[in-house]
């Protein structure tokens, strides 16, 4: 069947975009992709930079750090030091994707395939997104947050609000529940809850700090009554509920930052899968278009050139090397699953018996729905791909004079490399394990955090600055103790710093 291509030449029009979208939607349906409705927005480069600066939130509260990012991006873009991403997609319902007006028709089609069908179906079906984010409510919540912050600025002054936000941003990574399931957001409930909460929380906190003497208790009993009774991983949550001197509006701002951090948390955990999935589908969908002769050779060449750039992985010793490219790893793993389902080798049959009998679409769909980066790699990284990417495992132990190449892409190394690479994507492992340990209820009300070291890795130089921020929320002394795996305390940070005479006596 001979068909006329949808377009020739680089120019795009709204009619053409609609035509491409129609064809891509049809193909996506054939491939059984399940998506939210799409909302395509054409924007200028400057608007793209705006979106960049607000980390992809279509509506954000105002804060200087966003201005700083914007200025930085703008500067680099104007000097040609960086190109802008071709697309930006927001996990919302309808799924909002941005098309930049500078792009050619081929690029627009690539973006539509990548974002509107790739990312979109991932957002809708991956278990983490389903469990942790609510695409229906996020835009409303962001509007609520923006208005609330603006209102606070009016009432309490920009500086006051900025201080709270600065502190919250410093602790943003510790504002997520890693294991507990959050309740879905709903804007009406949120508003009512916010009002009740403000009053209720204040009474709660007061109760905690009541000064009426309770009578003498023995030290051992005090130890038993440690507060919180179990360590808390969500530091911002703990602050929101327990910080003694915060005003209700400050608690609400802590909560806003926490909620937004929680919304983005799954994106960090599925970077490889999400991008891999989207790349796989733009590749597959556009090739399907090409097979039907709906696009020209030039169109396909342009797409492939961009595709190749995106999934390029410079080797470890290249000047361009900047870690493993999640696009490369994800895309190749997706393709690998398809390959193993269709043309398995003996080795594949041995390693992945469960893939063999099913259709590749089912295998991919299952993988997309039920994994995050860590488990996805642990489950699906094949020896074939390890050889292809020539992965190797390196150990840098500061107690050894030299680095050790522990495993390479050979029979003995596959398992190790798979495990270690999976671990590299375990956010629980990347984000340092810092938890709220205790509060000195009877004494100076100091807050103690514990950092549990893995492999003797110490804390970085900015630790004191972060503690300063934490102190601005807690308003009583803050202590951070580093403990090794045996529970021995190896380092201690404190804000405000302990008085000088103590230092001297230690010396």
């Amino acid at each position: 069947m001979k068909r006329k291509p949808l377009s020739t030449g680089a120019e795009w029009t709204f009619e053409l975009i609609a035509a491409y979208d129609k064809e891509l939607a049809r193909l996506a349906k054939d491939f059984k992709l399940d998506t939210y409705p799409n909302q395509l927005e054409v924007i200028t480069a400057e608007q793209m930079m705006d979106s960049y600066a607000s980390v992809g939130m279509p509506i954000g509260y105002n804060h200087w750090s966003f201005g700083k990012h914007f200025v930085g991006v703008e500067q680099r873009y104007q000097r040609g030091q960086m190109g802008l991403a071709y697309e930006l997609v927001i996990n919302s319902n309808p799924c909002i994707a941005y098309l930049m007006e500078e792009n050619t028709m081929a690029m627009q089609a690539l973006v539509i395939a990548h974002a509107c069908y790739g990312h979109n179906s991932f957002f809708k079906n991956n278990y983490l997104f389903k469990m942790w984010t609510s695409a229906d409510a996020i835009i409303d919540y962001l509007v609520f947050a923006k208005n609330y912050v603006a209102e606070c600025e009016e009432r309490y002054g920009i500086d006051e609000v900025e201080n709270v936000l600065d502190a919250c941003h410093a602790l943003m990574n510790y504002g997520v529940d890693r294991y507990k399931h959050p309740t879905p957001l709903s804007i009406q409930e949120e508003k009512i809850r916010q009002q009740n909460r403000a009053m209720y929380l204040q009474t709660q906190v007061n109760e905690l700090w009541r000064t009426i003497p309770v009578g003498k208790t023995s030290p051992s009993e005090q130890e038993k009554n440690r507060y919180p009774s179990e360590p808390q991983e969500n530091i911002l949550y703990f602050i929101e509920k327990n910080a003694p001197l915060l005003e209700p509006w400050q608690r609400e701002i802590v909560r806003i930052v926490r909620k937004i951090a929680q919304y983005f948390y799954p994106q960090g955990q599925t970077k490889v899968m999400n991008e891999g999935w989207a790349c796989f589908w733009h590749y597959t969908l556009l090739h399907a278009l090409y097979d039907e002769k709906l696009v020209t050779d030039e169109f396909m060449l342009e797409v492939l050139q961009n595709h190749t750039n995106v999934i390029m992985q410079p080797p470890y010793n290249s000047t361009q090397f900047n870690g493993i490219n999640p696009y490369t790893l994800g895309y190749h793993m997706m393709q690998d699953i398809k390959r193993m389902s269709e043309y398995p080798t003996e080795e594949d049959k041995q390693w992945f018996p469960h893939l063999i009998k099913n259709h590749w679409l089912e295998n991919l769909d299952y993988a997309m729905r039920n994994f995050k980066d860590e488990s996805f790699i642990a489950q699906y990284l094949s020896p074939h791909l390890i050889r292809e990417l020539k992965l190797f495992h390196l150990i840098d132990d500061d107690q050894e004079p030299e680095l050790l190449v522990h495993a390479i892409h050979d029979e003995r190394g596959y398992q190790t490399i798979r495990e270690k690479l999976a671990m590299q994507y375990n956010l629980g492992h990347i984000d340092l394990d810092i938890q709220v340990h205790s509060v000195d209820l009877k004494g100076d009300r100091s807050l103690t955090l514990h950092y549990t070291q893995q492999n003797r890795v110490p804390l970085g130089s900015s630790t004191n600055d972060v503690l300063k921020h934490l102190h601005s929320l807690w308003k009583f002394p803050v202590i951070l103790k580093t403990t090794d795996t045996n529970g021995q305390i190896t380092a201690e940070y404190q804000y405000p710093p302990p008085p000088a005479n103590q230092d001297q006596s230690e010396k």
Partner: protein
Amino acid sequence: MTQFIDRRQNMGKKSTVNRQRFIRRYKNQIKRAVSDAIGKRSITDIDKGERISIPAKDTSEPQFHQGSGGKIERVLPGNDVFVSGDHISRPSQKEMAGGDGEASNAGSGEDDFVFQLSREEFLELYFEDLELPDLVKKELARIPTLRTVRAGVTTTGVPTNINVLRSMRQATGRRISLATPHKRQLKEQEAALLTCLAKEPKTKENNDAILALQEEILRLKKKIEKIPFIDTIDLRYNNRVRIPSPSTQAVMFCIMDVSGSMDEPKKDIAKRFFILLYLFLTKNYAKIDLVFIRHHTSAKEVSETDFFYSRETGGTVVSSALELLYQIIEQRYPADAWNIYVAQASDGDNWNADSPYCLDLLQEKIMPLLQYFAYIEIMPRHHQSLWEVYQLIHQKYPNFAMENIDTVVDIYPVFRELFKRKTA
């Protein structure tokens, strides 16, 4: 179903507020950079944006992160030479940094945060130092103004601009021209009717003719009535066009005492003083010439760089500069073709016997030619003879301004008259 939205027409600049917040937060650093920039700039290109750089450490947003040390395991791609069990010597810090690209040429690994301040932002920060009134700030920062002038009438416009008189005249004309043929016919028919009515005896034929004529007359009358009193095509609107406000040429003389007693801080104050006058002039004149005259015992016309950066020693004879000023005006800037402004900065030193001569020179020859003479004396303590002489002139000429200056904040009052006249 996919929805398409064209957002390109929407206001961009979503980040403007965030940008302002950023500038607000780092105001001190930015202001310092602005100050430095002014020192380096020539007077004529003060009116531009500026690249500002802030140490990265000040703008960082701290988070908990790993320090170096401990046992770190990584999986890397692109193995070309290693087999398992290989030991590799640890790359030095320098090599490691090199691996991250050019980002850290400086060695420290942390680059300054650099960004561009727009012209408005730059001037805003600059003016803040000088404590200018808002109205004046606005006046200086504005882009050359456009003046709205009448330019006849047009056929299109907004209702507020309707020119009633012209519209009515148009309507009258149209009514006349459209009604005339009918009116002529009407006249004829009426005349015919009269003759018919006058005819005796009344035949049936005649009666029919009368009826027909009456009918025709009625038809014509209706037609004339139907011509609208006023129609959209009659409407005329006042037309206004915006033209740049008249601008002519001006010359600004900067006169500075460069004797030994004028040190760098004093020169810096003087520079700001000159800049302010220059900025004022750029807003009001299309073409501005700058003439720099420096003097000690003798005066010389010099380039801007020499003016601010070279130092000489010796006594001071102010009249030498005034003489040169007069000469240059005579030769190159006839007062009827140029608006002449003079800004003089000095520490007040003058050879005592010279002051009366200055008085004569200014009163007799120079002041009648000038638009404005601004004098600052950068000397907190006692005044010398020059000050007293100038005070005499100040009393006589309203366009002679003088001020004793201690810090940059005191500069503005010198120009108060000047700006008052323009902004009033």
